[in-house]
């Protein structure tokens, strides 16, 4: 059994509902989709029990009827898991992962600025990366936002 299959097996044993949404994409790449309710237990299990101890970054996606966020978690073995969560565009609210990865703060701020995500529990601080006078309702990486519209 390869290391990827072992990871898949332990995830499916722990969370039965993952059996359909977990895929081994190629050696060292696994992708998982979870619902908002299941996100935290799966994330915690990956980060703490399966030693996916490095959060590479968080990618935001406008798909465009919903907003998705992919948490790229890497283990020292070189295996990288893309943990994807989709949220309705009307209320893209998720919980901060800074209790697990304090370094995630800046990645979450990017999601706030560029996608209009709302992150519960994000410590106060400067916005990133847009300027302080950037309009609060403009999210440049959303699909409907066009750069040349106002340039």
């Amino acid at each position, binding site marked *: 059994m390869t290391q990827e299959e072992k990871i898949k097996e332990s995830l499916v044993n722990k969370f039965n509902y993952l059996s359909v949404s977990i895929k081994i*994409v*190629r050696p*060292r*790449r696994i992708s998982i989709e979870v619902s908002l309710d299941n996100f935290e237990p799966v994330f915690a299990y990956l980060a703490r029990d399966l030693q996916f*101890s*490095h*959060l*590479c*970054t968080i*990618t*935001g*996606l*406008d798909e465009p009827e919903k907003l998705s966020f*992919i948490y*790229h978690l*890497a283990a*020292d*073995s*070189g295996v*990288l898991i*893309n943990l994807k969560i989709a949220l309705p565009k009307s209320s893209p609210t998720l919980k901060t992962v800074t209790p697990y*990865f*304090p*370094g*995630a*703060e*800046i*990645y979450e701020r*990017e999601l706030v600025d*560029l996608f209009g995500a709302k992150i519960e529990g994000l410590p106060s*601080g*400067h*916005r*990133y*990366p*847009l*300027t302080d*006078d*950037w*309009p609060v309702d*403009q999210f*440049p*990486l959303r699909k409907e*936002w066009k*750069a*040349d519209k*106002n*340039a």
Partner: protein
Amino acid sequence: MHDSKDFKIPIGPQHPALKEPEGFSVALKGEKILGVDIRLGYNHRGIEKAAEERTYVQDIYLIERVCGICSHSHSTCFVQAVEEIAGLAVPNRALYIRTIIAELERIHSHLLWLGVAGHEIGFDTLLMYSWRDREVVMDILAAITGNRVNYGMNTIGGVRRDIDAQQAEDILKALTILEERTKYYIEVATQETTIIKRLSGVGVLSREDVLRLDAVGPTARASGVKRDVRADDPYAAYAELSFEVITDDHADVYGRTVVRVKELMESYKIIRQALKNLPTGLLTVRAPRKIPVGEAISRYEAPRGEDVHYVKSNGTEKPERVKIRAPTLANVQAVKHMLRDRYLADMPIVVAAIDPCFSCTDRTVALKEEDCARAKVINWQALHAFSIEWYKQQGIDFTELNKKLQDRLKG
């Protein structure tokens, strides 16, 4: 975040350490740093959004310009993701050439850093020496690719230029010179009392903090964390080449210096092996203009650490989404931690020691928006007035001082 009695000084947003913008607000008690507030984003250029509006081929050149120093890192990281989605089998020769350019780039970047570090601690001789030697590798890069930076070597499915026998010989000759110089730098870094005393115990970041804050690259390896994408998640030709992942346990700026100079030796080793075993064959495979629907994430060990690119395709000739996470963004958060309870005078070298690259970090969006307050053209006088106001808001007011000076000039 701090008591109003604390003395606060703004450093930046104009080049606080290297010649790049980033704003620090440093709260001080005497010479001691109580806390640092970092404002990033000054270099935000809208690259991720722009990438969605361009074709894959145009994006190679756009993304190469995320960074002027590690341009090959970004373009390779990007094409790797696209090639994975398209299921292209990149020829071995191309993978080896990518690896050679990658290591040449690491050499020029580490030598550049060594000079900057020397400069920040007042050791300008080291700057002069290392930047002189850096020209050796710059000449090689220019001879192979035609450019000192932004090499334009990559294309989807391979590389655009070959390395011929004469060039291979020139590279080997250059490596001999560089290796001899690097041995000298290792000697300087490990034996020169000034360097050891100035850098030891400065900018400390424990192993636990590296893991907690997700630091990458030489910053992580200097704290004993053996993380290197080249070894952990091999790409290009790295799986077929032998090299050592350099680590150090000093966990301070000194350790970061030692890691970088020793990594230079590994780069020479990698390039020699790659040239010796350079496979024959094609440089590229034909890539489709429209990339099939899919997604891929690619990791790359840039000179500053792990670079991450995520690409999602939608079956057209333009990507649906390109996400870039440059190594400095992962490291900059550790800087706050390194500076707390340290002396203000250590700040330039501590910031420089992560080898920051704010252009990389800030890549993503921001074009002019008509209802945005800053979307206007202002003349020099207005800009001057604006800057005075801006500093006043930060609590810095030179009005009194200017008046005194003018009175004195008159008197």
